[in-house]
């Protein structure tokens, strides 16, 4: 693959908290137009990695390039302006504002930097329809349920008009129907041209939508490949299910 297709390139990305190696020397690349899934057991460093990409957490060492431009060390708002949006695992809505107001902040301050509130709200209406929150537009965000909050989080990121979208467990806490809906939505956004990096614990979902998968374990990258390759990878199985399970499986073979 040529370099022109790589939208995000990480080299030796490392973050330590004292003696803890949260993310250790990870090289990765995200190809323009793909959905890259990131999986790994709890504490593998997935969210830490996303936080380093969007600038909320500084790198201990290494470099991250977005469309060829070094972005490690930039402030989060600069990275947002360049076209990287993210959602948080623990949603962070803006209380005291309505759904419409929350989402229009994305249009006002994201990549497009719309100057006019009315213009931003028009664009926002369309995104609210997309995530099926249009009938909640004037509701205060405090009154939304979990599923609606997750979709609000997604809508706010979409309103920023990102080229690269980082999704941190947008399906956690949702029921199967809701998961189905959000999966369709992610695929649709991707088809419209947004590159997506997604962290998810719902295996069926992430295997279903990702083009490629990267597996982190104890902060290190242990595997990368198509969903099929990953499900058959011994190291991944052992990370998730324990070495004893792998030995038993080999014994059966």
């Amino acid at each position, binding site marked *: 693959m040529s370099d022109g297709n790589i939208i995000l390139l990480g080299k030796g990305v490392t973050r330590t908290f004292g003696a803890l190696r949260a993310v250790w020397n990870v090289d990765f690349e995200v190809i323009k137009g793909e959905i890259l899934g990131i999986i790994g057991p709890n504490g593998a460093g997935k969210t830490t990695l996303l936080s380093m990409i969007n600038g909320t957490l500084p790198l201990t060492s290494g470099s991250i390039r977005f469309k060829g431009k070094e972005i490690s060390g930039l402030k989060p*708002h600069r990275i947002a302006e360049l076209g990287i949006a993210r959602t948080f695992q623990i949603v962070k809505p803006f209380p005291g504002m309505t759904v419409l107001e929350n989402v229009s902040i994305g249009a006002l*301050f994201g990549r497009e930097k719309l100057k006019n509130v009315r213009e931003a709200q028009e664009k926002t209406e369309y995104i609210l329809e997309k995530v099926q929150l249009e009938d909640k537009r004037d509701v205060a965000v405090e009154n939304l349920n979990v599923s609606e909050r997750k979709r609000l989080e997604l809508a706010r990121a979409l309103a920023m008009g990102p080229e690269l979208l980082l999704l941190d467990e947008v399906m956690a806490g949702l029921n199967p129907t809701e998961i189905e809906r959000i999966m369709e939505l992610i695929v649709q956004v991707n088809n419209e041209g947004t590159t997506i990096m997604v962290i998810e614990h719902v295996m069926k979902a992430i295997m279903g939508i990702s083009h490629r998968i990267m597996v982190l374990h104890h902060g290190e990258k242990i595997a990368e490949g198509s969903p099929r390759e990953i499900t058959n990878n011994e190291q991944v199985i052992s990370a998730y299910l324990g070495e004893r399970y792998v030995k038993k499986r080999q014994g059966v073979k």
Partner: protein
Amino acid sequence: MVVEMRRKAIVLIVLVLIFLVLPFLVSGFWVRLVTGIFMFAILASALNIIAGFTGYAAFGNMIFFGVGAYTTAVLMNKLKFPFFTSLILSGGVAVLLAIVLGLLLLRLKGHYFALATLGAAEAMHQIVNNLTDLTGGGQGMSLPQMRGSPFVLNLFFYFLMFFFLVLITFLVWRLSKNRLGYAFKAIRANEEAASVMGINTTYYKIYAWSLSGLFTGFTGAIYAYWFTYIDPPTVFDVMMVVKMFVIILIGGAGTVFGPIIGAFILESISELVWAKFINLHLGILGTIIMLVVIFMPNGIIDLVTKKRSFKGIIKYLRENKL
């Protein structure tokens, strides 16, 4: 929606008209009293921009009042500047101070920020106190008196304060709807999420504090010329900020008209209590503040905007197990 907006507009126009003719109808005492209320309404509205909209409890906002007052006093006294030039320069000095202090202090959050601003205000108080050659130190400073009959003087300061009150109210009303206001409110709600969504939080926080400082500085300048004598303990008085916070609480934080309504209510009550029960003054005020905080945590403006009835308040209290 449209009908309601038209009704609001009519009420506002009528109020403005009333205040335009009022000083010609009442005695000098009342004109000065209302001028004082205007002053507190401006100060509270200015504090509302940083504390109500942006969520930073700037407990040291008196620093801009004092610096504004002293800038005007020094410029008029030592350099013989005309009042309006001094007034504008005072606003400028307050903004510069807000930018410098903001760069240093706005990285702190919550009560740390509140305490740091308090410390900064106290430091400035002491600096002014010790720059005896420039400021007269603890003796205070007299300003050249404006010429004219008491009636004209009263009118001058009344309309000057009124002008700035209308100006800041218009500005805050715009903030409640425009892009800048969205940035402030997002920072108040969740600073990390705001920055992730592309908001340059440092820039907007300093912007908010500068606006706040600008109007507080203007007010200080007018105060100095109005009273023609200032001294450090008066213009750097922490109790003034406490009063502004109470006004915002009573009226409604983060709203456009809350601080104005609050200023009128608190100052009227204060005047009444002061006149009738001079010994119980603070006690009665304190009781009123507690009642407001318990029964109307979002301010009196909630009664108007949410049309909350007495029954509604009782219901609210039950729901919140009070």
